[in-house]
């Protein structure tokens, strides 16, 4: 019995060890799953049930100088689906009815992303869903398991003025070439104008939300997580634009191709900047119909071009101001120096004409500016070294950027010796005759209206102005051309005479008001020799009013004929509008 009992104890021990080993195996398995592989399974469980949704940030609002909103946000949505959550229960026919996307399109999206292992990532299937359509889809939530919406930064244009080229439009980012730390592949970004230039201010920061979904892909609620981030709206921008004035200016320009800029020479703020033809930014909200896009792109009038800064023109007689300033500064002539204008000027074998066939007779510099006598400047040009003229032109702001806060500014062209040598190398060289053309702003010279208004600003402020800018709070950066004071005064007087005295070419720009002095210069720039196209018409000048307040203006009308007609008249009306209360 004793032996039997000890044998039993042995059996008990063996069985106990056997059982404990089983327990240990099971326990180890759970330990391995729950402790050692916990992170991996946590992630899997998260993938199962948590969906990360990126919240696009609303863009900053753009205001005019009086804090009137020019551009606001209006929610548009992306319709997205998460391939993993699309099941057999998905009501394809109803979906097709509502958003016009059939099952094969959805299936191909799903299949494409299944293989990439990206089945938990939301895929855009339709952009620019508006609020109404979104509400309808949300009503049928149970038929469309696995669909999500995400807000898009879309704009609404609430102002009366268009401001097309200033504001610019938004577009989907170039999918191949973008900054991956800042953007996602399907982001909407500012593509032109202020929207592009101040993209980093306006953009805002993404938010992230997590949602719990059940096995069938139905959202069960928000997943409260420390990782959730609310989207941060972009910074607002206040423009120096006066939207009322802008509307008036746009209406003035409505029937012409060209541009108008109105600036404050004392701080560089742009009060109005118009370019025509333009296009309606409202039609750029959401998808742009392809035929509309094509017609805009192929339009020979180039509606996408901001003529104030992106198109270059010969400046015509406006450039006589520049030549006068250079000549006076460098004491090349005395102010009283006269030349005789007989209406025609023979230089070697070529005849150059003044716009006035009968000629101006004996004329001094002041009157030559006032009456825009070509012959005077042909003579004057021959006394100046060509390269000096080119260098001084650059000093006065040409052939370089004005640093306006808009993208893609052009610089135009100021020819110099080197340029002429290269250009005419194969055409038999160039002669001084070419230079005569430069004296009156013709030939190879090309400038942008914003450069021209900067010259006027220099004159108005007697040698000092600021970089032009649209952002009201942009730091004023000065731009100085330190010519002698009496140079500027002389030119100002001549410009005053051109507007206010009988026989001045800009007489139509005269404003009959007390304490209002308008200064100006017209320009009539030939587009081509021996063609029927009308010349481009310029008027540029400034007004002094009130307590030494100034505004400058530059008007360019493409093929607008004589500068003394349409633009001078237009300037008068605009100044009268601005100064109606003065």
């Amino acid at each position, binding site marked *: 019995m004793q032996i039997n009992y000890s044998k*039993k*104890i042995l*059996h*008990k021990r*063996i*069985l*106990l060890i*056997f*059982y*404990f080993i*089983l*327990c240990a*195996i*099971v*326990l180890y*398995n*759970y*330990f391995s*799953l*729950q*402790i050692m*592989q*916990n992170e*991996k*399974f*946590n992630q*899997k*469980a*998260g993938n*199962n*049930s*948590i969906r990360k949704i990126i919240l696009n940030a609303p863009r900053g609002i753009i205001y005019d100088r009086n804090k009137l909103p020019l551009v606001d946000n209006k929610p548009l949505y992306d319709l997205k689906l998460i391939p993993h959550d699309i099941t057999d229960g998905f009501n394809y026919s109803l979906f097709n009815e509502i958003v016009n996307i059939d099952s094969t399109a959805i299936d191909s999206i799903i299949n494409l992303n299944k293989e990439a292992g990206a089945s938990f990532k939301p895929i855009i299937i339709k952009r620019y869903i508006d609020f109404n359509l979104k509400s309808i889809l949300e009503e049928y939530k149970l038929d469309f398991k696995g669909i999500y919406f995400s807000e898009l930064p879309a704009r609404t244009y609430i102002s009366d003025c268009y401001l097309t080229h200033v504001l610019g439009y938004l577009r989907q980012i170039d999918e191949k070439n973008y900054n991956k730390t800042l953007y996602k592949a399907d982001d909407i970004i500012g593509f032109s104008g202020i929207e592009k230039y101040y993209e980093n201010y306006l953009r805002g920061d993404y938010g992230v939300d997590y949602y*719990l*979904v*059940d*096995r*069938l892909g139905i959202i*069960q609620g928000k997943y409260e997580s420390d990782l959730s981030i609310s989207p941060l709206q972009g910074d607002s921008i206040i423009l120096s634009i006066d939207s009322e004035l802008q509307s008036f200016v746009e209406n003035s320009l409505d029937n012409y191709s060209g541009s108008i800029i109105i600036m404050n020479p004392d701080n560089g703020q742009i009060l109005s900047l118009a370019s025509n033809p333009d296009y309606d930014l409202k039609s750029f909200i959401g998808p742009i119909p392809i035929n509309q896009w094509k017609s805009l792109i192929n339009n020979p009038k180039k509606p996408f071009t901001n003529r104030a800064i992106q198109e270059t023109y010969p400046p015509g007689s406006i450039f006589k101001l520049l030549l006068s300033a250079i000549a006076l500064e460098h004491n090349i002539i005395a102010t009283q120096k006269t030349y005789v204008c007989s209406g025609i000027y023979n230089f070697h074998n070529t005849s150059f004409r003044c716009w006035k066939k009968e000629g101006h007779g004996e004329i001094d510099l002041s009157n030559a500016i006032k009456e825009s006598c070509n012959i005077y400047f042909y003579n004057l040009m021959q006394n100046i070294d060509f390269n000096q003229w080119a260098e001084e032109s650059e000093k006065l702001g040409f052939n370089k950027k004005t640093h306006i806060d808009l993208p893609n500014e052009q610089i135009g062209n100021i020819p110099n010796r080197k340029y002429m040598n290269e250009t005419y190398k194969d055409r038999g060289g160039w002669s001084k005759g070419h230079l005569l053309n430069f004296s009156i702003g013709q030939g190879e010279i090309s400038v942008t209206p914003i450069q021209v208004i900067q010259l006027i600003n220099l004159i108005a402020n007697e040698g000092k102005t600021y970089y032009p800018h649209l952002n009201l709070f942009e730091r004023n950066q000065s731009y100085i051309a330190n010519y002698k004071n009496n140079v500027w005064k002389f030119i100002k007087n001549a410009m005053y005479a051109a507007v206010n005295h009988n026989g001045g070419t800009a007489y139509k720009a005269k404003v009959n008001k007390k304490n209002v002095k308008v200064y100006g210069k017209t320009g009539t720039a030939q587009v081509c020799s021996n063609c029927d196209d009308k010349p481009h018409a310029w008027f540029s000048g400034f007004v002094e009013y009130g307590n030494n307040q100034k505004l400058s203006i530059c008007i360019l009308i493409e093929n607008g004929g004589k500068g003394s007609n349409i633009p001078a008249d237009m300037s008068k009306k605009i100044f009268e509008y601005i100064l109606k209360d003065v």
Partner: protein
Amino acid sequence: MFKGLFDFKNQKLHFNMTIIIPVIGFIILGLIVLSSTSNLNDISSTFYKQMSWIFLGSIFFIIMQYVRVQFLYDYSYIFYILLILLIFSTIFAPIIGGSKSWFVFGSMYFQPSEFGKILYVLCMSRFFIDNRNNKNISSYLIFILVLLFIPILLILKQPDLGTSMVYISIILPMLFWSGLKVKNIFLLIAPIVSIIATYDIVFFYFWMAIFLIILVISRNKIYVSIINFIINVLCGILSPYIWFELLKPHQRSRIETFLDPLSDPLGSGYQLIQSIISIGSGGFWGKGWGEGTQTHLKFLPVRDTDFVISVMSEELGFISIFALIIMLSIFIYWCLIYSCKIDNKYASIVLIGFSTVLFMHMIINMSVVSGLLPVTGLPAPFISYGGSFLLTCSIMLGLINNIVNNYI
């Protein structure tokens, strides 16, 4: 017939806490989990149903205290016939969940093979006791195989692999406890190893070498050794033949997915994959009661019954699994201590049988939900929701308590 089944005079109601307390722990854990998965405002939800089953189970437990174990010994062979009839009756059962193992009475489900476990242990115990001094080992082993495998084959035919796994798993401890020599137990399980060993031909040769050495060392009669060797070689040769020639490809793939459910992640493997994710994502402290995303977002389709441990792992974490294993160890430890102390051979081996059934149920269930064993429908005792199973467990526990009280 049932005269003498109960003895209210000599047998007293006494709770042996060393066995009862771990079980109460199981019940509490189960109720915590069920209260998380069911709607507590709904009086007909599984939580309240389980409560009433526990109440009913307690009554059964108390009734069991007055059963005379001697009576059970006397009627053991009748129980065997009863067992066969009971399991055989399932061929008339409706197909539920792919197998014919359940009878439905109104809203109640009844699984004959569940109660069959009690009868199985009772009759096998007597059979082992009566033959423990049998000198003719060969005929005894063959007899055991026939007797044991009739009910097991019937259950496999339903098919209910989980239950048959339990039936098989209790044989070895009981045989061992009845005094069968280890070398004979070895001969009994050798063919199974031979079948598995054919998976790799090198391993099979290796296994055959070991098998031969053990045959020589164990000094059996020469013809016994030869027959055994031939049986094992046949198993090894025939199983690849059956696998590749007799089974059709779709049958093969069905067995393969059964053995490796992860190869079919959206079909048969879905539940297991989600279960493993649930367990793994629980971590040490768990996600908290009612916070399991796998459970509450319905990724885990089956929750209250066979996969209740997954929910527990997810919400209560590894710490709850650890506690469960500790309680299980305490339970089996004391059961073994007691059966060692009992002189009555029959009572002792019945105690081993019942405690092994409960123990193996828990182990197999925990292994299944964590992917150690192929998925089979097998609940966790006292934790899973389920009426007939809870009653079966209560009866077994009641008889364990009865034997401990009356035979020490």
